[in-house]
C-alpha cells in the first residue's frame, strides 16, 4: 500500500528571493495508522512543513501527496481528508465552543443532523459537553486547546496534523491531550503527524520520530533506533555524599560487565555503562562490601534530548 503522506524535496522560502529558507528538501514517508512526530526547536520549520502539507502555504519547490491527492493540484479533495489542529488557538472568542464547532463544521461541508451529531461526538471526545455553550473567551487555556483540537476532528479526517498542541497548558490538560492522540490512533485508526519540541511527548506517542533542525530532517526512526544510532551510554549516578571511597572499590566498579568509566565528583559516583540497569545490582553489592553507604541511585538512559544534543551540539530547549 502506498504511504498516506509522501513528500519529495519539499521546500519553502519566505519572501523570495532573499527570505529565509524555512524548509529544505524534506522527504517524508508516513504510513497509514502511524503516529509520526516532528521534533525540533523553535523556528525549526515544523509549522511551515505542516502548512505546506495542509495546503495553506504554497511550497517553493517539491511536492506533497496526501491520501493520493497532490495538495497543489487537488487541494479541495486533500483538505477533505485532513484535519488540522493549528499551533494557534484559532477560534472566535465571542462565539461559544459549540458555535465555533458548528461554523467550521459547515465549512467542512457538514450540515443538519450529521453536523449536530458530529459536534456532540467531538464535545464528548474533548470532554467539554457541560461548558459547550459558553463563550470561548471565558474558557481556560486548556479548554481552548481542547476546542481547538475538536474543530480539527469534526469531519472525521483520516489524517490529523497537530502542531504543538500542548504548548502553554497545565500538566493535567496536557495529559488528556496526549491520551487523546493515542486514542485517535488506536480507536479511530487515524494517521497523526505531530509536532513538538518536548522530547518526552515524541518519545511517548510516536511510532517514528523525525528530528528537524533549520528546516532539515537530520535523523529519523523509532526512538530506539535513534538512540542506538548515536551509541550513547547509560549513566548510573550513585550518591555517596562525603564518605571516604576506597580506591579498590572504584577498581572493582570498573570490572563490572559493560562499565566503561567511573568518575567521582561532588559526592557522586558517575558510572557509564552500556546497559545500566543490568550493572546496577553488582555495583550496589560492591559498595556494601566496601562499607560505603549509598544514599540515592539514579539511572539516566539516553533520550531524544541526548540524540539532539549529539547531532547538533545544542539543547532542544534553550
Amino acid at each position, binding site marked *: 500500500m502506498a504511504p498516506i503522506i509522501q513528500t519529495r524535496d519539499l521546500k519553502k522560502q519566505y519572501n523570495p528571493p532573499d527570505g529565509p529558507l524555512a524548509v529544505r528538501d524534506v522527504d517524508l514517508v508516513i504510513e497509514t495508522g502511524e503516529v509520526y512526530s516532528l521534533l525540533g526547536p523553535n523556528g525549526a520549520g515544523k509549522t511551515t512543513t505542516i502548512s505546506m502539507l*495542509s495546503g495553506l502555504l504554497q511550497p517553493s519547490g517539491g511536492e506533497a501527496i496526501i491520501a493520493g491527492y497532490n495538495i497543489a493540484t487537488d*487541494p479541495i*479533495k486533500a*483538505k*477533505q481528508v485532513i484535519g488540522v489542529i493549528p499551533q494557534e488557538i*484559532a477560534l472566535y472568542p465571542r*462565539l461559544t465552543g459549540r458555535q465555533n464547532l458548528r*461554523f467550521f463544521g459547515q*465549512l467542512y461541508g457538514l450540515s443538519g443532523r450529521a453536523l449536530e451529531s458530529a459536534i456532540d461526538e467531538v464535545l464528548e471526545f474533548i470532554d467539554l459537553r457541560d461548558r459547550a455553550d459558553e463563550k470561548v473567551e471565558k474558557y481556560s487555556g486548556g479548554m481552548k486547546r481542547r476546542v481547538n483540537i475538536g474543530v480539527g476532528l469534526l469531519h472525521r479526517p483520516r489524517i490529523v496534523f497537530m502542531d504543538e498542541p500542548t504548548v502553554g497548558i497545565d500538566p493535567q490538560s496536557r495529559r488528556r491531550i496526549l491520551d487523546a492522540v493515542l486514542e485517535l490512533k488506536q480507536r479511530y485508526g487515524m494517521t497523526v503527524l505531530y509536532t513538538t519540541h518536548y522530547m518526552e511527548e515524541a518519545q511517548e506517542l510516536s511510532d517514528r520520530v523525525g528530528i528537524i533542525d533549520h528546516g532539515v530532517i537530520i535523523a529519523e526512526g523509532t526512538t530506539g533506533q535513534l538512540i542506538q544510532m548515536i551509541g550513547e551510554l547509560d549513566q548510573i549516578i550513585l550518591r555517596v555524599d562525603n564518605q571516604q571511597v576506597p580506591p579498590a572499590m572504584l577498581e572493582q566498579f570498573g570490572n563490572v560487565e559493560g562499565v566503561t568509566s567511573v568518575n567521582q565528583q561532588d559526592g557522586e559516583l558517575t558510572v557509564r555503562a552500556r546497559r545500566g540497569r543490568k550493572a546496577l545490582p553488582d555495583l550496589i553489592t560492591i559498595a556494601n562490601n566496601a562499607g560505603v553507604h549509598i544514599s540515592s541511585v539514579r539511572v539516566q538512559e539516553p533520550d531524544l534530548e541526548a540524540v539532539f544534543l549529539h547531532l547538533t551540539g545544542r539543547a532542544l530547549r534553550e
Partner: protein
Amino acid sequence: MRKLWAILWKENYERFTDRTGAIYMFLVPLVMSAIMGLAFSGMTGPQDVTVLDIPVGIVNLDEGGSQGTALGAIFSEALIPSDPASPDADNPLHRLFKARAISNEAEARALVDSGELTAALIIPPDFSASLTPDPAAFAAGGDEPLTLVGHTNLTLYRNPRSTVGWTIFRDVVQGIADGIAAGNIAVGATVSGLVEAIPAHPLLALQLASGSLNETFTGIAQAASQPDANPIRIRQVDVAGRTQDAFDPLATFSPGFAIFFMGFTVTVGSATILREQRLWTLQRMALTPTPRGIILGGKLLGTYVGGLLQMFVLMIAMSLVGLILQGPSTNIWGSDLPAVVALTLAAVAAATGVGITIASFARTEEQAGNLAAFVLFVMGLAGGIFFPTMQMPDFLQFLPRLTFHFWGGNGYTILSQGGALGDVLPNIAALLIMGVVFFVVGLYQFNRRLDI
C-alpha cells in the same frame, strides 16, 4: 452556497452581538441626530415664515398687442424695482417681494425647483394680443361690437414647500390680472395700498394666506369688470421642488450621520480580515475544503450586509426620533421606497469599497482603525456631514463629489424633499462607480498582501 451563508451569518452574528460595536453603530448616530434635532428645533417647520423678501421670478414672454400695447410688462413694472440694487423702500410690493426678471420658462422652473424661488409667473407670448381687439377686424368695419378676442393663461410655478409666501404672490398676481382685465391698469396701485399693511401685520399676512382676504381683491376686480367674462385664467403648477427655506434639522443631519457611521462599520468589518489573520481563524477557514473566493466573498458580503442592516435599522429609528421630536410632518427619507432602497444599496456598496481599500493598506486591525478614523472623518467633513458643502469655495466644489458621504447624503436630501428614483439616479450611478473602483483596488491590494 451554504458555506457562503455560514460565513455571512458568522460575520454578522459577531458584529451585532458586540455591545461596544452596537453603541457605535446605533446609539451614537441616533443620539447625535437627536441632539441636532433638538438644537435646531427653534428653526424647525417646513415652511417659510418670513413674509418679507419672498423671492419670485417673472418671465415676460408677451409679444405685445396690435396697437403696441404691452400688458405683460405691467406685472414687471409693478413688482420689479427699476434698480434692483436699491429697491424703493416706499413701495410695499418691493418690500414684500424680491422679484426678478427671468428670460425663459425652463430657467424659472429650475429656480423654483431648486428652492431659490418661491414661485415664478409666466406671462405667455399672446398675452397682450389676446386681450386687445383685433385691428384687422376693426379696420374691416362691420357692425360687431368691440370685444376682447379671447382668453389667455398666466402660469404660476409654485414650490409646494412654500405656503405663506406663495399664497401672497398668487393673490397679488390675481389682483393685477383682474385689474388688467377690467381695463383698469391703475388697479396695481390699489393692490399696493392693501399690501402695504402686510409686513407690519403678520396676522394680516396669515389671513391673506388662508384666503380670507381674497374677497378684497376680487372685490376690486368686480368693481371694474364683469366677473364672468374675466379672460385671464391663472393656471398653477406645483414644482416638485427642494427648498432651502424649509429647514428640517433631522432631515438635514440624520442621513449624513447614518452614512458616516455606516462607513465605520464597513471599514471595521473589512479590517476583520486582518484580525482573523492574527487569530488564525482566516487560515483555519482556508484549511477547510472551501475555495478562497468563497471565504473572502463571504466576509465582504457579510460586511456589506452588516452595513445595510445598520442603515435600515437607523432609518427606522431616526424616523421614530423625528416623529417624537418634530411630529408627523417630519420626513427624513422621502416617500419613494424603491428609490430609498436603491440609494441605500448603492451607498453601502460604495462605503464597503472604500472600507476594503482602507483596510487593505493597514497591517493590523488597530492600524486600520486609526486610518479609518482619519480618512472617514476627512471624507465626512468634505462630504458635507457636518456643514453644507455649498459653503465651500467654488474651486473646492469637486471635493465633496469624491466621497460617498456627499452622494449618499445629497440623494437622501433629494428624496426627503419629494424627489423620486429618477432624481437620484446620478447619485446611485456615482456611488456604484465608486464602489466598483474601490472594491477592485482594495481586493487587488489584499490579494497581493494576504498569503493564505
